[in-house]
């Protein structure tokens, strides 16, 4: 039977296509990987990411799992493949040349680290944020005992400005716990004993003289709270927070003069004490005006996302030394200084209410 040349070409084409298809598909084959604590079935690790770096290494792209196992050199160790997983560092106080295990997808490298550890008290089971030079470096949740600890690694040696704040059960921010810190090469600095100041609120904007005003807020669990009310002379009152860190003091206003007053609070526990937190104002007058239960907007928050950060800074910087638009005037009047211009005062307000 004579061979049909057209059919032969078709057969060859089909064979090549099938071969290519199978060959390409074969590259995607995967196998299972296990460790004592997990199993990954039919995994595929592709090369990805941008690069990781430190003072003494630079990893361009993450590594695929062509070869798994441990490779090591004088100052690095690669644990390639899915067999290795991230594990937390063992933080050591003031330890020069402390090491930490750091890993990326499919590869792990051990390097000498430079970093900082932070620990202290915030509000039970509430968020704590650490700002490094004004930008969020880490967030964590305090334990039921109000304690938190955070480790930052991979920092460069140099001067840093760290700020730490807590959030309460109404997502209000505490005042900053701020400190400059000099980080030295190859050492981990430890900052302990941080005590986030309490958050304070009042139940009335104006209180009838002689009536009580409720001064309340949140701090560490089971802490001793000192409430200060400023008048011509300051009045101090003591109360205790409960297991959730919530405290309340009913202040008798009969001892206060008519007019505006400020309240603030600080907390103490086991020989440790916070500084006074932000103040809240109220008037003593002829009638009671209750504070509305609504979430206040945040001063400095120009894009209304509940945060004050570089985005808001950029919006304000756009209007710096320019005559502001009518729509921005409204924003400026409520969220900045309200003087119809954007100057250093507005940026200072923004820096005070900064959340990162």
């Amino acid at each position, binding site marked *: 039977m004579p061979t049909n040349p057209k*059919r032969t070409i*078709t*057969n060859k084409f*089909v064979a090549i*296509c099938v071969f290519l*298809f199978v060959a390409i598909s074969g590259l995607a084959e995967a196998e299972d990987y296990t460790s004592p604590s997990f199993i990954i079935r039919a995994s595929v690790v592709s090369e*990805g*990411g*941008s*690069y990781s*770096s430190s*003072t003494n290494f*630079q990893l*361009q*792209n993450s590594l695929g799992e062509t070869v798994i196992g441990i490779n090591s050199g004088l100052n690095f160790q690669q644990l390639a493949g899915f067999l290795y997983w991230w594990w937390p560092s063992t933080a050591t106080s003031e330890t020069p040349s402390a090491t930490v295990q750091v890993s990326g997808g499919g590869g792990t490298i051990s390097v000498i680290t430079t970093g900082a550890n932070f620990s202290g008290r915030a509000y039970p089971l509430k968020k704590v944020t650490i*700002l490094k*030079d*004004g*930008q*969020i470096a880490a967030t964590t949740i305090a334990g039921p005992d109000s304690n938190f600890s955070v480790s930052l690694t*991979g920092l*460069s*040696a*140099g*001067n840093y*400005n*760290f*700020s730490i704040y807590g959030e309460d059960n109404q997502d209000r921010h505490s005042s*900053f716990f*701020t400190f*400059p810190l000099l980080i030295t090469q190859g050492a981990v600095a430890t900052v302990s004993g941080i005590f986030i100041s309490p958050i304070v609120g009042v139940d009335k904007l104006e209180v009838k003289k002689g009536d009580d005003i409720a001064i309340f807020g949140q701090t560490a669990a089971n802490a001793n709270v000192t409430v200060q009310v400023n008048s011509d002379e300051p009045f101090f009152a003591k109360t205790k927070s409960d297991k959730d860190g919530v405290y309340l003091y009913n202040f008798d206003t009969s001892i206060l003069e008519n007019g505006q007053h400020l309240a603030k609070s600080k907390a103490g526990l086991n020989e440790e004490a916070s500084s006074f937190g932000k103040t809240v104002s109220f008037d003593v007058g002829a009638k009671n005006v209750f504070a509305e239960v609504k979430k206040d907007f945040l*001063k400095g928050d*120009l*894009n209304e996302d509940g945060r004050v*950060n*570089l*985005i808001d*800074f*950029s*919006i304000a*910087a*756009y*209007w*710096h030394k320019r005559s502001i*638009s009518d*729509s*921005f005037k409204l*924003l400026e009047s409520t969220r900045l*200084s309200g003087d119809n211009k954007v100057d*250093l*005062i507005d*940026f*200072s*307000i*923004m*820096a*005070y*209410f*900064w959340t*990162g």
Partner: protein
Amino acid sequence: MTKTSKLKIVFLLSIFYFLFFVASTKAAEIYLESPFSEFMAGDRFEVGFYINAEGEEINALSGKVVFPNNLLEFKEFRDGSGIVNFWIEKPNIQSDGGIVFSGIIPGGYNGEKGLIFSAIFQLKQEGEGTISFSGIKVLLNDGQGSETTATTSDFKFLILKKAEGAANRVFVFSIRDGKDDELPEDFKPEIGRSSEIFEGRYFLVFATQDKNSGIARYEIREIKRWIGLENLLPFVKYFRRYPWIIAESPYLLKDQKLKSYIYVKAVDKSGNERIAVVEPRYPTRWYEKSLVWVIILMTGIIAYLIWVKLKNK
């Protein structure tokens, strides 16, 4: 009461006033400092501008640095280890020869020796001169932008005649051990949108620090594919259509549909680079990728041809 007694009372009251009012007045101090003060014409030297908050917590400052233009030429500023986190106006030379600056410190600063920035000057000719401040404003971290008083002190320097055959020297302190192989700090750019700027279009904000020499510039690349492929497939023209471009924050995004990867490269003054990646907010779906359709088409053709072959048997 005798005249002597009256004088004694006035004298004592003056001392009382000084001790309890004047001496207790807090004022932030802004001063200049450099480990070097005597130079030769042609040298370069670095001087630091510092603040002592004197126990107060400050969060914003601005001012102007004045120097003799006939003796000094401003070359560059460095803020690697500075306390100012965000510049409203980066230190820059004005037409009148002064250097203006303004910036903020979120969270505040209450230390005694905070570097605001340092400046490197080239010395033009021999002579004596002074670098000083004018129009300094320091604001408190009190939520109201209250201004605190600030005192300033000057920096005096002496430029000697250059010795014959002597080489020009460089006196800098901002780079540790004279070398800088550290990358800029890790950072996370963010996408923002506001009706108040860029007509409500998406923009990108970014900032980082380099603790050694300071940041020189930022570069941006918006691209729909992962740029790691570029190293593997350098011949593909697609990548050349999206080169790195020098940018400043805030940066108006070209891809307003937010389907692109955004790569931001921070480059320090020693050339070290750090790249941060923003993943596409609305990644391209599988059916929007032409490669997927090519594979489907190929599979369809193969299936058809196999079917034809089997049918003809």
